């Protein structure tokens, strides 16, 4: 009888190379499967066990996962975009023109980056609304909500810093307006404005600053907080479901016992 695909995979998992990489070993027992998650540096952030119903669309609408998906697209398209881009005046604008007209599929790359960025901002908000209206921010998940707010800010800052990089009129004036809003802060507003732009007006320094923020600092910060965010999901008891919350369960139990008591009477 011919081997099934699963059997080929089992053979692969038994090889020495595989075993040297994945410590958990083979086998489909609950322990082995839990170990496979727990002992992987990437996967160990996630819960070792998830209820099947939490994977249905209605539970989360996959909003968090989709947000992560757009983030991955943004990193994947952002890196090749960096190959073609000089954060200098006025070469930055010429580079965006080259991406549009000369680089193979450059326009596709740029548009994918741009639309994913828009989608990410939208998804982050949708994710927060869902969490808010479902009450998933409540104990014990308060801190993960705070992490989420930080991630919202990072997302918005990524979007804002990326807006300057094409160095066109839209970018220039958007950042001029945006940074002037910052200078409305009482007392230290002008200092913030100066710090943000590396000068008193949007120019080469601002472009370089925004480039470094957009391509280095903010993505790293986002990855860091995303890691914490995921880790806290696991630590705070997995994905939120109203039905499985302790309070609901308690109320249910209480309700049941009350009913039982009534019946007993």
């Amino acid at each position: 009888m011919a081997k099934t695909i699963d059997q080929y995979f089992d053979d692969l998992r038994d090889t020495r190379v595989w075993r040297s990489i994945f410590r958990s070993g083979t086998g489909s027992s609950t322990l082995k499967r839990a170990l496979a998650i727990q002992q992987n540096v990437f996967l160990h952030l996630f819960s070792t066990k998830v209820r099947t119903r939490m994977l249905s669309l209605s539970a989360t609408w996959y909003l968090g996962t989709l947000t992560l998906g757009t983030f991955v697209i943004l990193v994947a398209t952002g890196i090749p975009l960096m190959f073609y881009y000089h954060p200098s005046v006025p070469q930055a604008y010429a580079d965006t023109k080259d991406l549009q007209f000369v680089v193979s599929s450059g326009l596709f790359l740029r548009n994918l980056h741009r639309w994913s960025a828009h989608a990410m901002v939208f998804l982050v908000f949708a994710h927060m609304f869902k969490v808010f209206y479902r009450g998933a921010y409540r104990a014990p998940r308060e801190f993960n909500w705070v992490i989420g707010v930080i991630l919202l800010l990072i997302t918005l800052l990524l979007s804002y810093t990326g807006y300057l990089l094409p160095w066109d009129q839209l970018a220039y004036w958007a950042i001029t307006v945006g940074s002037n809003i910052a200078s409305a802060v009482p007392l230290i507003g002008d200092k913030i404005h100066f710090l943000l732009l590396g000068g008193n007006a949007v120019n080469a320094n601002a472009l370089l600053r925004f480039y470094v923020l957009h391509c280095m600092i903010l993505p790293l910060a986002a990855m860091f907080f995303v890691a914490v965010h995921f880790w806290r999901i696991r630590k705070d008891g997995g994905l939120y479901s109203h039905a499985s919350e302790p309070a609901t369960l308690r109320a249910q139990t209480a309700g049941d016992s009350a009913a039982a008591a009534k019946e007993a009477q």
Partner: protein
Amino acid sequence: MKEKLRSLWQKLFGDSVRAFGVVSFIFLVSLAVAPAKNYFSEWRHYQHGYLRMIRNRSDANTLQRHFRGGIQQIWLPELDVVDRCTSCHVGLKEATLADVAVQPFRTHPVIPHKLDQFGCTICHRGQGAATTVAEAHNSTLAWEQPILPARYIESSCGECHRGPLPGTPVLNQGRNLLSRYGCVHCHTVKLPDGSTMKATDDPPSLSHIADKTTREWIFAWLKDPQAYASTATMPNFKLTDDDTRDISAFLIANSAPLPGDTIALSTKASSDATAGPSLYGESFCASCHAVQNAAGNLVGGDVGPELTRVGNKVKPEWLQAWLRNPRTYDPPTGMPHYRFNDAQIATLSPFLLAKTDSDLLANVHLDAATPEQIAHGKRLVSDYGCASCHEIAGIKKPEAFAPELSHIGSKPITQLIFLPGMPHTLPDYIAGKIKQPRAFSPGLKMPQYSFTPAQIDALTTALLSLNDRSNTLPPSLAVAAIPESDYEPAGKAGKLMSDLACFSCHRINGHGGDMAPDLTWEGSSVQREWLVRFLKNPGTLRPSLIRRMPRFNLTDSEANELTDYIMTVYQSPAVDRDSMPLSGYSPGQVELGKQLFYGKYACQGCHIVNGNHDKGYIGPTLTQVGSRLTAAWIYQWMKDPQALRPGTTEPNRAMSDEDARVLTAFLMMQKSGAKQEVAKK
């Protein structure tokens, strides 16, 4: 139907594996759009078209060899040029493709520049970096400058070439119009070399206007200057009757009499009806002034004002004083001081005063001005910026009365307000503003000019050349204009020369007009006796030109004074006047020169030495050249005419010293006296 759809849904998305497969397939197809779009690009389409087109041509092999596929670009970092136009315009450099009707494959017309040195967008504007037709040619949200319409193309020449060029008539005309129509009185135009464009229209002072003309004429003139003279450069301010009445009241009230600018003549005019016209002709008034003839055509020059209806304008006493000496009324005027005697003035002025148009002032009836009207008139004169052009006693010339135009050719479209229905481009905006300035907003003060469409195009061209690039050009690329020098001759002779307004027509040391020959080296060129004679009674030198040098009635001492000055000061360092004798050449030399003249060099093609058989009329007549020019000048002229007078049509024949010497000998024998002797015999 519904059932069918449901079964289709089941087939495609029935279980998760199918759904995954289908979604993956759709995703793959949509991803494939990107490389497909990349491949089926416009420039590749045009390159294929080009290869198909050249296949059947006789020069296919050469063209094929020159062809380079892929995106082409001209990159000029110092000019900030990245032009990819040649990706589609493949045949631009192929001279043999001039006959191709299909664009973008035709060759570029012959121009003095190499495409590789300047690219395309320097002249044509548009977005050079683009590789699609729409983005490259038309203005989009991400590019300010669409392609420049061909009729304004010379504006791009003007970015580097600050002076006039033979190949850019439209640009030259536009620049002249900016100066001549006084645009730069109100609009400051700073040129890239740091200078400011100057007006050449010389608007008259209005401080003594009541001596010269009447309030009725001022009224008619202000209402419509072109009704008085079609060539008037004064624009129409579209004033109401009341405003015109008040401005004329103010100007008359504000005018102060000037001593000596009106005279009453005791001499009576001669009764001969032809005396006036013939004096007008003899004095060559028409060299500068035009008059409309019966057919409605203008006859005469455009240096001075048109005189068709001058009788409606000037007062007789003023005209007489003006003819006697125009410098009394207007010291810097370009009109020469003719030194007419009273009899001549009495002859000329009635002739001029008879040039009237009975319709012009027929309907102008003005009551005596009230103080309120005068005050209102003064306010209007300030509001309309009259003093930007005219000197008016008691009113200061306004500073920066109208917007500066030094960078108008780069004005962002976002800063323009267009009229409804007008194409949203900068050239259309500029042309529209010149054509109908008041249409853009009711409160605007810019007056209505009566330019022809060609003049509007020329002005637009000149204004478009005033842009950011022309102001930030690398100095190595800028071709400076020859600056107009402010040369003024010194001393008594200098005074005489400005009194005679020599510089209205002649150019000396880079200063003056271009109607008559440049006199910078006149002292090396001519003989003293001839010059004295010429100044006293000028004649023409060239058969193809009408004589235009007027007779100024100079006294002997004035003629000698002027001649001495010219002979001493206007000498060329290249010509030593005394290095060759004026006469005494051997007959052998003269005969040899004659043979060269008629044989080897065929000078008679352009010049006349013997009026009986020579037919040349391009160059000056040489029948008396031996009495006119110095031998040294003739010799040097033969050797290299362009060195003595740049731009002259006389060809450089690269003569040997010996040829030049014998030709000089021959020409020096052509003396006025010699001819008379022949006649006597």
